[in-house]
């Protein structure tokens, strides 16, 4: 069985824990309990050519009191950048985090999750912002842990990207 380490990264209260809970246990709660340190879960994704076990590292969110420790990302084969669509600043933080993570563990696949799309009428993140992200070649998904939108899709998409050989990590092959 192939195993991959996957990290959940983003600002506090963007829904990292909720996305993992929805994906792994199929549950959701409106109650907010901030993650302290790291929480680990796993789930087997069957959609690809061969089943893959994702070991999910749900890391506490970045806030004004503490930054994310990069050492928790060591060895990750992929990660999610989780953004709360209703709070614009979480997108800026996600963009900064992406640069930090890439500097630390190299270019591995990641997906931007614009979460809480059930509240889309209150979003501060605009279609223009999304275009900007896509222009960088990033994979962007609108998701909702609450209403189970795009959660399965996101995890199987990342699994699929991780199972491809990582050509971009070999410098002389980069065009």
């Amino acid at each position, binding site marked *: 069985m192939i*195993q*991959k380490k996957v990290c959940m990264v983003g600002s506090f209260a963007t829904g990292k824990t909720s996305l993992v809970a929805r994906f792994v246990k199929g549950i959701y709660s409106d109650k907010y309990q*901030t993650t302290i340190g790291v929480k680990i879960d*796993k789930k087997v994704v069957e959609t690809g050519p061969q089943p893959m076990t994702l*070991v999910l590292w749900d890391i506490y969110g970045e806030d004004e009191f503490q930054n994310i420790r990069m050492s928790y990302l060591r060895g990750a084969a992929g990660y999610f950048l989780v953004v709360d669509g209703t709070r614009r600043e979480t997108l800026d933080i996600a963009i900064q985090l992406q640069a930090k993570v890439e500097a630390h563990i190299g270019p591995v696949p990641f997906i931007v999750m614009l979460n809480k799309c059930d509240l889309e009428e209150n979003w501060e993140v605009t279609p223009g912002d999304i275009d900007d992200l896509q222009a960088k070649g990033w994979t962007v998904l609108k998701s909702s842990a609450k209403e189970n939108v795009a959660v399965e899709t996101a995890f199987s998409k990342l699994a699929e990207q991780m199972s491809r050989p990582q050509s971009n990590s070999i410098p002389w092959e980069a065009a």
Partner: protein
Amino acid sequence: MDNSKTGSLPPPEDQIVEATMSPPTSQAGMSELRRLLFGEKLESLKPTTTVKAEAVSEVLAEAIAQSHAQYSKKLTQAAVPTVESAIQTSVETDINVLSEALFPIIGPATRKSVAAAIRNLTQSFNQGLEHSLSPQSFKWRWEARRTGRSFAEVVLLRTLVYQVEQVLLIHKETGLLLQQVVSEQAQSQDPDLVSAMLTAIQDFVQDSFNVQSGGSLDTLEVGEVNIWIEAGPQAVLACVIRGNAPQELRGQLQTTLEQIHRAYASPLKDFEGDQEAFGSSQTYLQDCLKAQFKTRGNGQKQRPTKLLIGLGCLTLLLGAWLGLRIKAGQQWQAYINQLEQEPGLVVIQQKRQGGKFKLSGLQDPLAQSPDALLAQTKLKPEQVTMRWEPYLSLDDAFTLKRWEAWLEPPDSVTLKLDPDQVLHLSGTAPVSWINFSQRLLAKGGEGLRDWNTEALIPQEQQQLKALQEQIEQRSILFSQGSTNIEAGQQATLQAQGEDLAEVMAIAQALDLEVGRITLAGYSDPKGDRKDNQDLSQARATTVQQALIQQGIPAPLLQTQALGENHQTTPENPQNRRVSISIELPELETQSPTPPAP
């Protein structure tokens, strides 16, 4: 020999003649045959050493690499004598060259092995001491003599009870599980989660305590269960052990880990998440799955008489000695009882070793210091070894203390935790602190079911209220029938201006607007009513001008002429006054921004 020479050199002319004339000997025949076959080409096959060396040097590196790939053992074996004699020569010529090259390796290696040896030694020594006077020790001494082992060794062997329940092989970089073995009797946790969590804990410890490079967490103790962790460059071995394992097991872990690194060097390096390559490492891990149980009553019967006499003497001695120890034991027990009553302290293990007491437990950072409690007993600190691991107590008193430490409330604020785990905040505090505390609480209350800040009063509001009262109580008095203020009233006017300025400043800092400031003029009833009306207006205007001079914005200052109709008591100088009233802005604390609507 000679043959080889003839093989490569053309024979001289006369030899050829000779060869054709006489029946060819086998040697000469060979030469002839060669000459006929190769003719002049033989010349070019001559081994000119220079040419050959050049040609070989071109392919040497590649040849070695290839031969290593195909026949690694052979090449290595072939090279051994050369390498050995090269090292020997190097040592003979100049010992410094090699010793300098080896220096960086030898230092850490010796340090490590010396440290391990000392640890082993102290452990067996401690055990030996502990049991040197127990009744059983007699039997063990006997056994030691019979088997030629050291007493300490026998004690170690007979007392340790432990079982390795689970062995995990973890990929160091990703924290993913490579392989595991579980002992039959044990119930194991999901090894994937355990591996990742252990790795996260390692990361956390390494980051948080700034350990020097190379150092890492190697033991976790959770009650009965110990987790031993041995980290190599690519992989980590973790053993879940119940009971007290001997230090030798550590050596076993190191050996196994080294073997695995050797056997799986390239799968480890190129690991992409595929566990399959490590299936066969089970056999290595099995070596670590050890157990040792206390053996009871097996072994041959000892000679009873000798044993009994020995035991008798020993008991007498022990009796006297125990008498001395009992007292200390009682004090110790009293101390343990006290610790157990103390909130935030949990005693996990305690034992007596020789004349010493050992204790390990959990301590909330906010709990009473166990050392301070010890100082109140008759026990001597050097008799007692304690090890306290930090933990967070969920005792209400500690939840409250912790929140006090996080919130750092000003003295004027009281925090109360009610039996339903609701935190009540009351008292006065700066608006900035109230906002801060609400934000922090909104992030999720550790140990709290709910919280309530309704009884918090913004300090600034009180300040404004006090200033307002002060301003409104003062009057500025005027001379009879005049718009000149009375002698000595200048200071009051000045004070009014300063207090108003302060009101403005507080309001501005909170981004609020001050409402209207009304200057009401009065006059006494002497003289014409209409003149008095004008006089009261003129007095109010005088004060208005003076306040504008002091920097109060003119648009806020309104005058009001109240004439002679508002007497306090007849002939009271207060009847010729100007008093000030202000409308204060309503102060609201910003409500906490909830993370999600």
